[in-house]
């Protein structure tokens, strides 16, 4: 059984479900806009410091939206006992995991498509391909890690508490490098290319680790 086909089928199924119910993306997009609003008042943003504060707000909003998006990917499955049904087939758990992680990333990316222009709009920061690239590259690694731990805590008590506790320490390198990348792209000091290559390194490292760990987390 070809794992790529399995992953594709799972991703398609998740995306199709989301398309029909439209539960996650609108709620997340709203959340992100609100986060930007809070950022504005919480930080006393004005035209002078907007560029230095905006990256921070971006990553804060992204981190919290990510926790919700990835948490939901597996919590919803659980409620429907459907994850077990999938695991009862001969399909490889890693492929199933990959499919779900890809679908969840795409949903988060859809929200980022709202967030980045909004950030630009509200804070007057440049909206460039560099910023978009940094966010996209970071999303890949963050999604793999977020989904792995979401799968783990879905079967554990107190999951809303445990998911951030486990995931955030692993997201810190992405936030550091990604934060730097976005800052550089917005004109602050620091090397953009170094930041991006770090992000790519982290992506590779954690994608490999996550795919190795997935079968221990999903399978009984």
């Amino acid at each position, binding site marked *: 059984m070809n794992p790529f086909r399995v992953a594709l089928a799972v991703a398609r199924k998740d995306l199709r479900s989301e398309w029909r119910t439209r539960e996650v993306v609108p709620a997340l997009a709203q959340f992100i806009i609100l986060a930007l609003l809070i950022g504005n008042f919480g930080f006393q943003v004005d035209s002078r410091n907007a560029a230095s504060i905006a990256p921070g707000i971006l990553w804060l909003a992204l981190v919290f939206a990510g926790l919700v998006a990835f948490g939901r990917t597996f919590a919803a499955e659980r409620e429907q006992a459907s994850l077990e049904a999938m695991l009862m087939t001969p399909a490889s758990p890693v492929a199933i995991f990959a499919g779900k992680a890809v679908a969840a990333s795409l949903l988060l990316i859809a929200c980022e498509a709202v967030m980045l222009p909004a950030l630009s709009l509200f804070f007057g920061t440049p909206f460039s391909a560099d910023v978009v690239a940094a966010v996209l590259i970071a999303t890949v690694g963050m999604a793999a890690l977020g989904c792995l731990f979401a799968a783990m805590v879905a*079967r*554990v008590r107190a999951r809303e508490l445990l998911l951030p506790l*486990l995931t955030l320490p692993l997201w810190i*390198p992405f936030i550091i490098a990604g934060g730097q990348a976005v800052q550089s792209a917005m004109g602050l000091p*620091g090397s953009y290319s170094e930041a991006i290559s770090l992000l790519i390194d982290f992506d590779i*490292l954690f994608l490999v680790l996550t795919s190795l760990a997935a079968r221990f987390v999903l399978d009984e």
Partner: protein
Amino acid sequence: MLIAGAAIFFYAPTDYLQGPVQRIFYLHVSSAIAAFGCFAVVLVGGVIYLRNESPAADRFARSGALVGVVFTTVTLVMGMLWAKTVWGAFWVWDARLTSTLVLWIIYAGYLLVRRLADPGRQAARFAAVVGIFGFIDVPVVHFSVTWWTTQHPGPVIINDALPPQMLATFLFTMACTVVLAAVMIAIRYRIETLVDEREQVFEPAKVLVAREPEPVQ
């Protein structure tokens, strides 16, 4: 350990720049090294557990994590005391302090996962995964923060040069601390073994399992 304590206070000369408070350094760094040793035990225990489900490996991992968190807490507290006295601030966002804090958070998470997951196989498996990711994450975080500071240069803070008497004291203290950690792990391992035994061995109630057909009322 008592000998180490005596050595710290009477044998090592007072550091020229920092004064008596510098003596905390011996225990602070030794604690940190002991903690890393403990987490290495967690890593190895976790990997072995995932490969062949050995309960002993899991017990080592559990013990290592608990003792490691204790030592990390000690490291952090001492670090903060030192920082306050020497620099005037409890905390600085440099690579070492940040990674130690992240380390603490990760293994606190490890212990929580153990507590909240289904005890037995599930808890052991999940914790092993957390332990492995955690162990890899700490150097990555350390590296990231170091890299960050190269992007944003600031004052260099920690001076590591050591005269011979201090070095000797330090190595001795470190050796004692590591031994202490090993002993604590061994004790904890014994406790965990007893806990495991208590939970797994029930006296099965005497039940007659009928094998012939019989009408059930």
